[in-house]
Protein backbone atom coordinates (compact mmCIF):
# COMPACT_ATOMS: atom_id res chain seq x y z
CA UNK A 1 0.00 0.00 0.00
CA UNK A 2 2.90 2.37 0.46
CA UNK A 3 2.73 4.58 -2.64
CA UNK A 4 4.57 7.59 -1.18
CA UNK A 5 1.30 9.53 -1.53
CA UNK A 6 -1.31 10.83 0.86
CA UNK A 7 -4.73 12.29 0.10
CA UNK A 8 -6.62 15.15 1.68
CA UNK A 9 -10.29 14.18 1.93
CA UNK A 10 -12.79 17.03 1.72
CA UNK A 11 -16.54 17.66 1.75
CA UNK A 12 -16.87 18.66 -1.89
CA UNK A 13 -15.06 19.53 -5.10
CA UNK A 14 -15.22 23.21 -4.17
CA UNK A 15 -13.29 22.48 -0.99
CA UNK A 16 -10.75 20.43 -2.98
CA UNK A 17 -10.25 23.29 -5.43
CA UNK A 18 -9.68 25.77 -2.65
CA UNK A 19 -6.91 23.51 -1.30
CA UNK A 20 -5.49 22.95 -4.78
CA UNK A 21 -5.16 26.70 -5.28
CA UNK A 22 -3.55 27.20 -1.89
CA UNK A 23 -1.03 24.40 -2.49
CA UNK A 24 -0.18 25.70 -5.95
CA UNK A 25 0.37 29.16 -4.55
CA UNK A 26 2.58 27.78 -1.78
CA UNK A 27 4.58 25.57 -4.15
CA UNK A 28 3.43 22.12 -2.90
CA UNK A 29 3.06 19.39 -5.52
CA UNK A 30 -0.52 18.12 -5.69
CA UNK A 31 -3.17 16.68 -7.98
CA UNK A 32 -6.93 16.29 -7.79
CA UNK A 33 -7.88 12.62 -8.12
CA UNK A 34 -11.07 10.59 -7.58
CA UNK A 35 -11.44 9.53 -3.95
CA UNK A 36 -9.92 6.00 -3.59
CA UNK A 37 -12.78 3.57 -3.00
CA UNK A 38 -11.18 2.02 0.12
CA UNK A 39 -11.21 5.40 1.86
CA UNK A 40 -14.72 6.54 1.03
CA UNK A 41 -17.70 5.61 -1.09
CA UNK A 42 -18.02 9.26 -2.14
CA UNK A 43 -17.98 9.92 -5.87
CA UNK A 44 -16.03 13.15 -5.54
CA UNK A 45 -12.41 14.18 -5.75
CA UNK A 46 -9.65 14.55 -3.19
CA UNK A 47 -6.24 16.23 -3.22
CA UNK A 48 -3.26 13.90 -3.62
CA UNK A 49 0.01 15.12 -2.11
CA UNK A 50 3.44 13.62 -1.52
CA UNK A 51 3.53 11.71 1.74
CA UNK A 52 6.78 13.47 2.60
CA UNK A 53 4.94 16.83 2.58
CA UNK A 54 2.10 15.71 4.86
CA UNK A 55 3.27 17.42 8.05
CA UNK A 56 4.06 20.73 6.39
CA UNK A 57 0.78 20.77 4.43
CA UNK A 58 -1.24 19.86 7.52
CA UNK A 59 0.33 22.81 9.30
CA UNK A 60 -0.41 25.08 6.34
CA UNK A 61 -4.08 24.04 6.19
CA UNK A 62 -4.48 24.65 9.90
CA UNK A 63 -2.72 27.99 9.70
CA UNK A 64 -5.00 29.08 6.83
CA UNK A 65 -8.07 27.66 8.64
CA UNK A 66 -8.98 25.56 5.60
CA UNK A 67 -11.67 22.92 6.19
CA UNK A 68 -10.94 19.29 5.33
CA UNK A 69 -12.12 15.92 6.57
CA UNK A 70 -8.84 14.08 7.06
CA UNK A 71 -5.48 13.32 5.51
CA UNK A 72 -4.85 9.65 4.72
CA UNK A 73 -1.79 7.80 3.51
CA UNK A 74 -2.64 5.74 0.43
Amino acid at each position, binding site marked *: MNSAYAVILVDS*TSHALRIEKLLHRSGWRNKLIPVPRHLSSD*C*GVCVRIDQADMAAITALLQQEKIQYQSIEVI
Partner: protein
Amino acid sequence: MSELDLSGGKNGLIYLDNAATSWPKPPGVAQAMVQYLGQVGANPGRSGHRLSVEAARIVYDTREAVARFFNADDPLRVVFGLNVTDSINLALHGLLKRGDHVVTTSMEHNAVMRPLHALTQQGVLVTKVACRPDGTLDPERIEGALQKNTRLIAVNHASNVCGTILPIVAIGEIARRHGLIFLVDSAQSAGVVPIDMQASQIDLLAFTGHKSLYGPMGTGGLLVGQRIQSEALRPLRQGGTGSRSEREVQPDFFPDCYESGTPNAVGLAGLLAALTWVRERGIEQIRAHEEALCTALIDGLGDIPSVTVYGTWEAAKQTATVAWNMRNMAPSTVGLRLDEEFGILCRVGLHCAPSAHRTIGTFPDGCVRFGLGAFNTRADVESALNAVVQLAKDAL
Protein backbone atom coordinates in the same frame (compact mmCIF):
# COMPACT_ATOMS: atom_id res chain seq x y z
CA MET B 1 -13.04 56.85 -21.32
CA SER B 2 -12.79 55.88 -24.98
CA GLU B 3 -15.92 55.20 -26.98
CA LEU B 4 -16.29 51.69 -28.35
CA ASP B 5 -16.91 50.64 -31.93
CA LEU B 6 -19.81 48.52 -30.73
CA SER B 7 -21.86 51.69 -30.44
CA GLY B 8 -25.47 51.22 -31.45
CA GLY B 9 -25.12 47.48 -31.89
CA LYS B 10 -26.10 45.66 -35.06
CA ASN B 11 -28.14 47.12 -37.95
CA GLY B 12 -27.97 50.63 -36.58
CA LEU B 13 -30.17 49.73 -33.64
CA ILE B 14 -29.76 51.71 -30.48
CA TYR B 15 -30.10 49.42 -27.50
CA LEU B 16 -31.44 51.27 -24.46
CA ASP B 17 -32.76 48.28 -22.55
CA ASN B 18 -29.71 47.57 -20.44
CA ALA B 19 -31.78 47.61 -17.26
CA ALA B 20 -33.49 44.45 -18.55
CA THR B 21 -30.24 42.86 -19.68
CA SER B 22 -27.01 44.42 -20.86
CA TRP B 23 -26.17 44.14 -24.53
CA PRO B 24 -23.83 43.79 -26.24
CA LYS B 25 -21.55 41.76 -23.98
CA PRO B 26 -17.77 42.15 -23.95
CA PRO B 27 -16.35 39.83 -26.67
CA GLY B 28 -14.48 37.73 -24.10
CA VAL B 29 -17.79 36.49 -22.68
CA ALA B 30 -18.88 34.60 -25.79
CA GLN B 31 -15.30 33.41 -26.36
CA ALA B 32 -15.12 31.90 -22.87
CA MET B 33 -18.45 30.14 -23.39
CA VAL B 34 -17.44 28.77 -26.78
CA GLN B 35 -14.17 27.57 -25.29
CA TYR B 36 -16.01 25.87 -22.45
CA LEU B 37 -18.40 24.07 -24.78
CA GLY B 38 -15.71 23.17 -27.29
CA GLN B 39 -12.85 22.16 -25.05
CA VAL B 40 -14.02 21.53 -21.49
CA GLY B 41 -17.64 20.49 -21.70
CA ALA B 42 -17.70 18.06 -18.78
CA ASN B 43 -19.93 18.18 -15.70
CA PRO B 44 -18.19 20.13 -12.91
CA GLY B 45 -17.67 18.39 -9.60
CA ARG B 46 -19.30 15.16 -10.66
CA SER B 47 -16.36 13.05 -11.79
CA GLY B 48 -12.64 12.86 -11.08
CA HIS B 49 -11.36 12.99 -14.66
CA ARG B 50 -9.42 15.92 -15.97
CA LEU B 51 -12.23 17.58 -17.91
CA SER B 52 -14.62 17.40 -14.97
CA VAL B 53 -11.95 18.81 -12.69
CA GLU B 54 -11.22 21.58 -15.18
CA ALA B 55 -14.94 22.39 -15.38
CA ALA B 56 -15.09 22.52 -11.58
CA ARG B 57 -12.03 24.75 -11.57
CA ILE B 58 -13.79 27.27 -13.84
CA VAL B 59 -16.84 27.26 -11.56
CA TYR B 60 -14.62 27.68 -8.50
CA ASP B 61 -12.64 30.50 -10.11
CA THR B 62 -15.94 32.26 -10.82
CA ARG B 63 -16.94 31.78 -7.18
CA GLU B 64 -13.68 33.39 -6.09
CA ALA B 65 -14.06 36.23 -8.59
CA VAL B 66 -17.61 36.96 -7.37
CA ALA B 67 -16.52 36.90 -3.71
CA ARG B 68 -13.64 39.28 -4.47
CA PHE B 69 -15.91 41.55 -6.50
CA PHE B 70 -18.27 42.13 -3.56
CA ASN B 71 -15.60 41.83 -0.86
CA ALA B 72 -17.11 38.69 0.64
CA ASP B 73 -14.68 36.72 2.76
CA ASP B 74 -15.50 33.14 1.75
CA PRO B 75 -15.87 31.98 -1.89
CA LEU B 76 -17.64 28.83 -0.71
CA ARG B 77 -20.47 31.03 0.56
CA VAL B 78 -21.19 32.19 -2.98
CA VAL B 79 -24.26 30.11 -3.86
CA PHE B 80 -24.90 30.07 -7.59
CA GLY B 81 -28.46 30.05 -8.92
CA LEU B 82 -30.47 30.81 -12.01
CA ASN B 83 -30.66 34.59 -11.58
CA VAL B 84 -31.31 37.18 -8.92
CA THR B 85 -34.98 36.18 -8.58
CA ASP B 86 -33.96 32.60 -7.81
CA SER B 87 -31.50 33.86 -5.22
CA ILE B 88 -34.01 36.18 -3.56
CA ASN B 89 -36.43 33.25 -3.38
CA LEU B 90 -33.77 31.16 -1.66
CA ALA B 91 -33.12 33.96 0.83
CA LEU B 92 -36.77 34.70 1.64
CA HIS B 93 -38.28 31.22 1.52
CA GLY B 94 -35.18 29.65 3.06
CA LEU B 95 -35.02 32.04 5.98
CA LEU B 96 -38.50 33.13 6.97
CA LYS B 97 -41.05 31.24 9.01
CA ARG B 98 -44.47 31.89 10.46
CA GLY B 99 -44.50 34.89 12.80
CA ASP B 100 -41.35 36.49 11.35
CA HIS B 101 -41.68 40.15 10.40
CA VAL B 102 -39.93 41.66 7.38
CA VAL B 103 -39.35 45.32 6.58
CA THR B 104 -39.04 46.20 2.91
CA THR B 105 -39.65 49.27 0.75
CA SER B 106 -42.31 50.42 -1.68
CA MET B 107 -39.72 50.51 -4.49
CA GLU B 108 -39.15 46.76 -4.68
CA HIS B 109 -39.38 44.66 -7.84
CA ASN B 110 -41.77 41.73 -7.93
CA ALA B 111 -38.72 39.50 -7.40
CA VAL B 112 -39.04 40.59 -3.77
CA MET B 113 -42.75 41.47 -3.61
CA ARG B 114 -44.14 38.20 -4.96
CA PRO B 115 -42.16 35.84 -2.71
CA LEU B 116 -43.06 38.09 0.25
CA HIS B 117 -46.71 38.06 -0.77
CA ALA B 118 -46.63 34.27 -0.95
CA LEU B 119 -44.98 34.13 2.46
CA THR B 120 -47.69 36.30 4.03
CA GLN B 121 -50.07 33.45 3.17
CA GLN B 122 -47.86 31.31 5.42
CA GLY B 123 -47.97 33.67 8.38
CA VAL B 124 -44.99 35.90 7.63
CA LEU B 125 -45.67 39.59 8.33
CA VAL B 126 -44.47 42.32 5.98
CA THR B 127 -44.18 46.09 6.36
CA LYS B 128 -43.65 48.06 3.18
CA VAL B 129 -41.99 51.38 4.02
CA ALA B 130 -43.04 54.16 1.63
CA CYS B 131 -40.32 55.84 -0.39
CA ARG B 132 -40.60 59.41 -1.64
CA PRO B 133 -42.04 60.04 -5.14
CA ASP B 134 -38.49 60.29 -6.53
CA GLY B 135 -37.81 56.80 -5.16
CA THR B 136 -35.49 57.95 -2.36
CA LEU B 137 -35.81 56.65 1.17
CA ASP B 138 -35.14 58.15 4.56
CA PRO B 139 -33.46 55.24 6.40
CA GLU B 140 -35.07 56.36 9.66
CA ARG B 141 -38.37 55.16 8.23
CA ILE B 142 -36.91 51.64 8.17
CA GLU B 143 -35.97 51.94 11.82
CA GLY B 144 -39.45 53.26 12.62
CA ALA B 145 -41.05 50.17 11.07
CA LEU B 146 -39.15 47.64 13.17
CA GLN B 147 -41.15 45.43 15.52
CA LYS B 148 -40.24 42.95 18.24
CA ASN B 149 -40.56 40.06 15.79
CA THR B 150 -38.67 41.74 12.91
CA ARG B 151 -36.11 39.31 11.55
CA LEU B 152 -35.14 40.70 8.18
CA ILE B 153 -34.71 43.96 6.29
CA ALA B 154 -34.92 43.36 2.52
CA VAL B 155 -34.25 46.22 0.09
CA ASN B 156 -33.17 46.81 -3.47
CA HIS B 157 -29.95 48.76 -4.01
CA ALA B 158 -31.21 50.61 -7.09
CA SER B 159 -34.68 50.85 -8.59
CA ASN B 160 -35.29 48.97 -11.81
CA VAL B 161 -37.86 51.62 -12.77
CA CYS B 162 -36.13 54.97 -12.23
CA GLY B 163 -32.65 53.97 -11.04
CA THR B 164 -32.88 55.65 -7.62
CA ILE B 165 -30.17 54.33 -5.28
CA LEU B 166 -31.17 53.41 -1.72
CA PRO B 167 -28.84 54.13 1.22
CA ILE B 168 -27.71 50.56 1.93
CA VAL B 169 -24.83 51.54 4.21
CA ALA B 170 -27.20 53.38 6.56
CA ILE B 171 -29.77 50.58 6.38
CA GLY B 172 -27.03 48.00 7.07
CA GLU B 173 -26.10 49.90 10.21
CA ILE B 174 -29.71 49.86 11.38
CA ALA B 175 -29.94 46.13 10.70
CA ARG B 176 -26.77 45.40 12.64
CA ARG B 177 -27.71 47.67 15.54
CA HIS B 178 -30.97 45.76 15.96
CA GLY B 179 -29.46 42.32 15.35
CA LEU B 180 -31.46 41.81 12.13
CA ILE B 181 -30.58 40.04 8.91
CA PHE B 182 -29.95 42.39 5.97
CA LEU B 183 -30.80 41.25 2.42
CA VAL B 184 -29.86 43.40 -0.58
CA ASP B 185 -31.21 42.89 -4.11
CA SER B 186 -28.35 44.18 -6.27
CA ALA B 187 -29.94 43.38 -9.65
CA GLN B 188 -29.64 46.95 -10.95
CA SER B 189 -26.45 48.03 -9.21
CA ALA B 190 -23.96 45.16 -9.16
CA GLY B 191 -21.15 46.06 -11.54
CA VAL B 192 -21.87 49.77 -11.75
CA VAL B 193 -22.20 50.91 -8.13
CA PRO B 194 -19.47 49.51 -5.85
CA ILE B 195 -20.79 47.06 -3.25
CA ASP B 196 -18.71 46.02 -0.27
CA MET B 197 -20.57 43.27 1.52
CA GLN B 198 -18.58 43.59 4.71
CA ALA B 199 -18.46 47.41 4.90
CA SER B 200 -22.22 47.63 4.22
CA GLN B 201 -22.91 44.84 6.74
CA ILE B 202 -24.90 42.85 4.21
CA ASP B 203 -25.81 39.34 5.34
CA LEU B 204 -27.41 38.19 2.10
CA LEU B 205 -26.49 39.72 -1.25
CA ALA B 206 -28.50 38.57 -4.25
CA PHE B 207 -26.96 39.34 -7.64
CA THR B 208 -27.55 38.62 -11.30
CA GLY B 209 -24.81 38.05 -13.84
CA HIS B 210 -26.49 39.39 -16.97
CA LYS B 211 -27.04 43.08 -16.26
CA SER B 212 -24.21 45.41 -15.21
CA LEU B 213 -21.84 42.51 -14.65
CA TYR B 214 -22.11 41.89 -18.44
CA GLY B 215 -22.31 38.11 -18.16
CA PRO B 216 -24.82 35.75 -19.80
CA MET B 217 -28.39 35.14 -18.67
CA GLY B 218 -28.92 32.16 -16.41
CA THR B 219 -26.19 33.22 -13.99
CA GLY B 220 -26.59 34.78 -10.58
CA GLY B 221 -26.41 33.89 -6.96
CA LEU B 222 -26.66 34.61 -3.28
CA LEU B 223 -23.66 35.58 -1.19
CA VAL B 224 -24.22 34.42 2.36
CA GLY B 225 -22.44 36.23 5.20
CA GLN B 226 -20.86 34.52 8.17
CA ARG B 227 -23.73 35.43 10.47
CA ILE B 228 -26.08 33.08 8.60
CA GLN B 229 -25.55 29.42 9.43
CA SER B 230 -26.67 26.74 6.98
CA GLU B 231 -29.22 25.47 9.56
CA ALA B 232 -30.96 28.85 9.38
CA LEU B 233 -31.26 28.86 5.59
CA ARG B 234 -33.29 25.98 4.21
CA PRO B 235 -32.43 24.84 0.68
CA LEU B 236 -35.38 25.13 -1.71
CA ARG B 237 -34.25 22.12 -3.77
CA GLN B 238 -32.64 18.83 -2.90
CA GLY B 239 -30.71 16.57 -5.21
CA GLY B 240 -27.36 15.50 -6.52
CA THR B 241 -24.36 17.63 -5.62
CA GLY B 242 -21.44 15.37 -6.51
CA SER B 243 -20.64 15.19 -2.79
CA ARG B 244 -21.66 12.69 -0.07
CA SER B 245 -23.13 10.46 -2.75
CA GLU B 246 -23.48 7.56 -0.33
CA ARG B 247 -26.16 9.45 1.61
CA GLU B 248 -29.74 10.30 0.69
CA VAL B 249 -29.85 13.29 3.01
CA GLN B 250 -28.97 16.72 1.60
CA PRO B 251 -25.43 17.90 2.52
CA ASP B 252 -25.47 20.67 5.13
CA PHE B 253 -22.38 22.59 4.02
CA PHE B 254 -21.83 25.56 1.68
CA PRO B 255 -22.27 25.72 -1.25
CA ASP B 256 -23.45 22.17 -1.99
CA CYS B 257 -26.43 22.43 0.36
CA TYR B 258 -28.02 24.95 -2.06
CA GLU B 259 -26.64 23.86 -5.42
CA SER B 260 -28.38 20.63 -6.34
CA GLY B 261 -28.26 19.55 -9.96
CA THR B 262 -25.84 20.35 -12.75
CA PRO B 263 -24.94 24.05 -12.65
CA ASN B 264 -24.83 26.44 -15.60
CA ALA B 265 -21.07 25.97 -15.95
CA VAL B 266 -20.96 27.38 -19.48
CA GLY B 267 -22.75 30.48 -18.23
CA LEU B 268 -20.39 30.77 -15.28
CA ALA B 269 -17.41 30.54 -17.66
CA GLY B 270 -18.93 33.55 -19.44
CA LEU B 271 -19.56 35.34 -16.14
CA LEU B 272 -15.91 34.85 -15.14
CA ALA B 273 -14.80 36.55 -18.37
CA ALA B 274 -17.36 39.30 -17.79
CA LEU B 275 -16.15 39.97 -14.24
CA THR B 276 -12.60 40.18 -15.54
CA TRP B 277 -13.75 42.73 -18.13
CA VAL B 278 -15.56 44.86 -15.54
CA ARG B 279 -12.56 44.78 -13.19
CA GLU B 280 -10.12 45.65 -15.96
CA ARG B 281 -12.24 48.46 -17.33
CA GLY B 282 -12.88 49.65 -13.77
CA ILE B 283 -16.23 50.00 -12.08
CA GLU B 284 -15.49 53.69 -11.40
CA GLN B 285 -14.80 54.34 -15.09
CA ILE B 286 -17.95 52.53 -16.16
CA ARG B 287 -19.94 54.46 -13.59
CA ALA B 288 -18.44 57.80 -14.70
CA HIS B 289 -19.24 57.02 -18.34
CA GLU B 290 -22.84 56.07 -17.55
CA GLU B 291 -23.29 59.01 -15.21
CA ALA B 292 -22.22 61.46 -17.94
CA LEU B 293 -24.64 59.88 -20.43
CA CYS B 294 -27.39 59.81 -17.83
CA THR B 295 -26.96 63.51 -17.10
CA ALA B 296 -27.18 64.31 -20.83
CA LEU B 297 -30.29 62.16 -21.14
CA ILE B 298 -32.06 63.65 -18.10
CA ASP B 299 -31.20 67.20 -19.19
CA GLY B 300 -32.29 66.56 -22.76
CA LEU B 301 -35.59 64.95 -21.81
CA GLY B 302 -36.19 67.71 -19.27
CA ASP B 303 -35.91 70.29 -22.06
CA ILE B 304 -38.82 68.76 -23.97
CA PRO B 305 -41.96 70.47 -22.61
CA SER B 306 -44.35 67.53 -23.03
CA VAL B 307 -42.00 65.07 -21.29
CA THR B 308 -42.09 64.25 -17.58
CA VAL B 309 -38.95 62.67 -16.12
CA TYR B 310 -39.31 60.61 -12.92
CA GLY B 311 -36.72 59.86 -10.28
CA THR B 312 -34.05 62.02 -8.73
CA TRP B 313 -33.06 64.09 -11.79
CA GLU B 314 -29.49 63.66 -10.54
CA ALA B 315 -27.28 61.07 -12.20
CA ALA B 316 -25.15 60.72 -9.06
CA LYS B 317 -28.17 59.58 -7.05
CA GLN B 318 -29.29 56.89 -9.46
CA THR B 319 -28.12 54.32 -11.96
CA ALA B 320 -28.27 55.24 -15.65
CA THR B 321 -31.90 54.13 -15.90
CA VAL B 322 -34.26 56.96 -16.72
CA ALA B 323 -38.06 56.73 -16.44
CA TRP B 324 -40.21 59.20 -18.32
CA ASN B 325 -43.56 59.79 -20.00
CA MET B 326 -44.88 61.92 -22.80
CA ARG B 327 -48.10 63.87 -22.45
CA ASN B 328 -50.88 62.63 -24.77
CA MET B 329 -49.03 59.48 -25.85
CA ALA B 330 -49.29 56.13 -24.05
CA PRO B 331 -45.97 54.51 -23.08
CA SER B 332 -46.83 51.50 -25.23
CA THR B 333 -47.23 53.76 -28.28
CA VAL B 334 -43.99 55.56 -27.51
CA GLY B 335 -42.14 52.23 -27.22
CA LEU B 336 -43.57 50.85 -30.44
CA ARG B 337 -42.82 54.00 -32.43
CA LEU B 338 -39.28 54.29 -31.04
CA ASP B 339 -38.62 50.72 -32.15
CA GLU B 340 -40.34 50.81 -35.56
CA GLU B 341 -39.47 54.33 -36.68
CA PHE B 342 -36.14 54.96 -35.00
CA GLY B 343 -34.63 51.56 -34.14
CA ILE B 344 -34.49 52.57 -30.50
CA LEU B 345 -35.08 49.66 -28.14
CA CYS B 346 -36.37 50.30 -24.64
CA ARG B 347 -38.89 48.93 -22.19
CA VAL B 348 -42.29 50.44 -21.46
CA GLY B 349 -45.04 49.54 -19.03
CA LEU B 350 -44.82 48.53 -15.39
CA HIS B 351 -41.42 46.82 -15.40
CA CYS B 352 -42.53 44.04 -13.01
CA ALA B 353 -42.67 46.65 -10.26
CA PRO B 354 -46.24 47.88 -9.66
CA SER B 355 -45.44 49.16 -6.17
CA ALA B 356 -42.52 51.23 -7.46
CA HIS B 357 -44.80 52.72 -10.12
CA ARG B 358 -47.38 53.57 -7.45
CA THR B 359 -44.62 55.29 -5.49
CA ILE B 360 -43.49 57.49 -8.38
CA GLY B 361 -47.08 58.10 -9.52
CA THR B 362 -47.14 56.17 -12.79
CA PHE B 363 -49.47 53.30 -11.89
CA PRO B 364 -51.34 51.80 -13.75
CA ASP B 365 -50.20 53.26 -17.07
CA GLY B 366 -46.50 52.78 -16.43
CA CYS B 367 -43.81 54.72 -18.22
CA VAL B 368 -41.01 54.56 -20.77
CA ARG B 369 -37.63 53.39 -19.48
CA PHE B 370 -34.29 54.13 -21.10
CA GLY B 371 -31.63 51.90 -19.57
CA LEU B 372 -28.12 52.99 -20.51
CA GLY B 373 -25.08 50.72 -20.36
CA ALA B 374 -21.31 50.79 -20.68
CA PHE B 375 -21.48 50.36 -24.48
CA ASN B 376 -23.83 53.27 -25.11
CA THR B 377 -22.36 56.49 -26.45
CA ARG B 378 -23.16 60.17 -26.46
CA ALA B 379 -24.37 59.71 -30.04
CA ASP B 380 -26.89 57.11 -28.84
CA VAL B 381 -28.26 59.56 -26.30
CA GLU B 382 -28.50 62.30 -28.90
CA SER B 383 -30.29 60.04 -31.37
CA ALA B 384 -32.73 59.02 -28.67
CA LEU B 385 -33.39 62.64 -27.69
CA ASN B 386 -33.97 63.61 -31.35
CA ALA B 387 -36.44 60.75 -31.69
CA VAL B 388 -38.32 61.84 -28.58
CA VAL B 389 -38.49 65.42 -29.93
CA GLN B 390 -39.99 64.04 -33.16
CA LEU B 391 -42.60 62.04 -31.25
CA ALA B 392 -43.40 65.04 -29.08
CA LYS B 393 -44.40 66.99 -32.19
CA ASP B 394 -47.02 64.33 -32.97
CA ALA B 395 -48.29 64.27 -29.40
CA LEU B 396 -49.24 67.94 -29.21
